């Protein structure tokens, strides 16, 4: 598989505080990668920097062979990068359909339009005239993912997939993601739920204090290794999974 996304020695800051430190990673076409880590580890900033919503203070982001580091978020969207932001960030006063149409107006050509998105998320069809602010958490997350799909991305970044959702809503969202993955979508997920992340992802990257401290295929990593890297209690985890005993 060819690398769709290459992040090279990326740095990002919040004011003077480093939030992302010297991160390098690649995501291959059709791959699902999970970013895990504790609150404040830098996952969201890393994802937002890749999407162009946060400025990089060093390093570069190469998407589909093009250096997009200096591009604005809307320019990266037109190249095929879409981010489902933390907290969904729906336009609360717009209806579900209006949220989708806003994303579709300048969309790249592709398979996703209002009809195909509503086919993929059938629970949204009866809600299309409802304002987004009146939806439940699960419905909002489904709308946010559907809205991002309306841009016809080749790379979908989803921040905090299950945060604040009921278990039933999480099941619904992951069912939808499973269908996208089966269709060959390329996904990068930020997820606090280790079990969910490891179940759905081809690879897991653990972020601690802005740096990646553990990488490996989900099938090759033990829960203990990931947990240790997650909390930063075992510095032996600061190696790739293949190096671990």
């Amino acid at each position: 598989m060819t690398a769709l996304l290459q992040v090279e020695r990326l740095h990002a800051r919040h004011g003077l505080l480093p939030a992302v430190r010297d991160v390098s990673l690649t995501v291959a076409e059709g791959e699902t990668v999970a970013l895990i880590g504790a609150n404040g580890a830098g996952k969201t900033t890393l994802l937002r920097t890749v999407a162009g919503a946060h400025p990089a203070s060093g390093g570069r982001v190469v998407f589909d062979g093009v250096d997009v580091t200096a591009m604005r978020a809307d320019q990266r969207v037109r190249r095929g990068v879409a981010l489902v932001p933390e907290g969904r960030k729906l336009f609360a006063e717009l209806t579900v359909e209006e949220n989708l149409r806003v994303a579709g107006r300048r969309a790249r050509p592709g398979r996703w339009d209002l009809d195909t998105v509503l086919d993929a998320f059938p629970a949204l069809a009866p809600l299309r005239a409802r304002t987004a602010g009146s939806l439940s958490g699960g419905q909002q997350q489904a709308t946010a993912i559907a809205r991002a799909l309306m841009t016809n991305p080749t790379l979908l970044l989803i921040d905090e997939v299950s945060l604040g959702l009921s278990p039933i809503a999480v099941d619904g969202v992951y069912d939808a993601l499973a269908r996208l993955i089966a269709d060959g979508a390329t996904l990068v997920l930020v997820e606090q739920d280790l079990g969910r992340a490891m179940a759905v992802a081809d690879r897991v990257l653990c972020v601690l204090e802005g740096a990646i401290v553990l990488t490996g295929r989900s099938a090759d990593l033990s829960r203990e290794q990931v947990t240790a890297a997650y909390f930063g209690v075992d510095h032996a985890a600061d190696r790739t999974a293949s190096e671990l005993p």
Partner: protein
Amino acid sequence: MNWVNAVVQGIFLGGLYALFACGLSLLFGVMRIINLAHGDIAVLGAYVVWAIATSFGLNPFLALVPALVLMLAFGYLLQRLVLTRSIGSGQLIPLLATFGIAIVIQNGLLQAFSPDVRSLGPQAGGLTTASARLTDTISIPIFGLVVLAVAVVVLGGLQLMLRHTGVGREMRATAQDPDTAGLLGVPASSVYARATAIAVATATVAGAFLAVRGTFDPASGPTQLIFAFEAVVIGGLGSLWGTLVGGIVLGVAQSLGAVIDPQFSILAGHLVFLVILATPRGRSLAMGGARA
């Protein structure tokens, strides 16, 4: 003038104020800035119409068409070249930027056209003085009716555009969250430039009607800004139909004030504005944000 006729005249005057105010309301609703140059932009539009009408011997309403094209372009460039640099820098910087634009426009007009008072009324023909008498004491000014009708069409058109077109949905989305709109491929700067162009165009229409209805000079802008601001606040910041109501309330207050004493006209409008602003509803309207 009896009280009923004063109310009728005030409603028509309110149409003009609503027309002045709708661009101010749109810019606040979409960009969250208060454009202190709005009145001066309207007067600039009036001068553009006057220059075209006198240069080519056109009726002011015909001259308004090319003037609108020029002012749309002016509004687009104004945002792209000046306002865009002040967006996202807090509330003070856009205020200072638009205040500076107002000073530049006023002094530019003084330099180009002198402080002489002008009017487009004579070139508009009998429309400005025509009226339909309903009773012995109540008459409807035809020009006032035209202005009110145009205000309703402009505000209604803007409302339809915001609700039912892709451009309007992008404006509403960007007004709510420009960063998230950017994550969906919608560049806020482009949306803001369109909104500014539309706001400047509506101000030009209002400026032209002001020039037909009465007189104008390079210093006329700030007064119109105050009336527009009062109409917007009375109607609720960012609410287009509220702006129409606000303009009419202001116009009626001024007309009724004039019945009491001609010198009390403008002050009556300010007093109504202050009274409405002081009520809990007024405060909530003023803080209501974009509801277009």
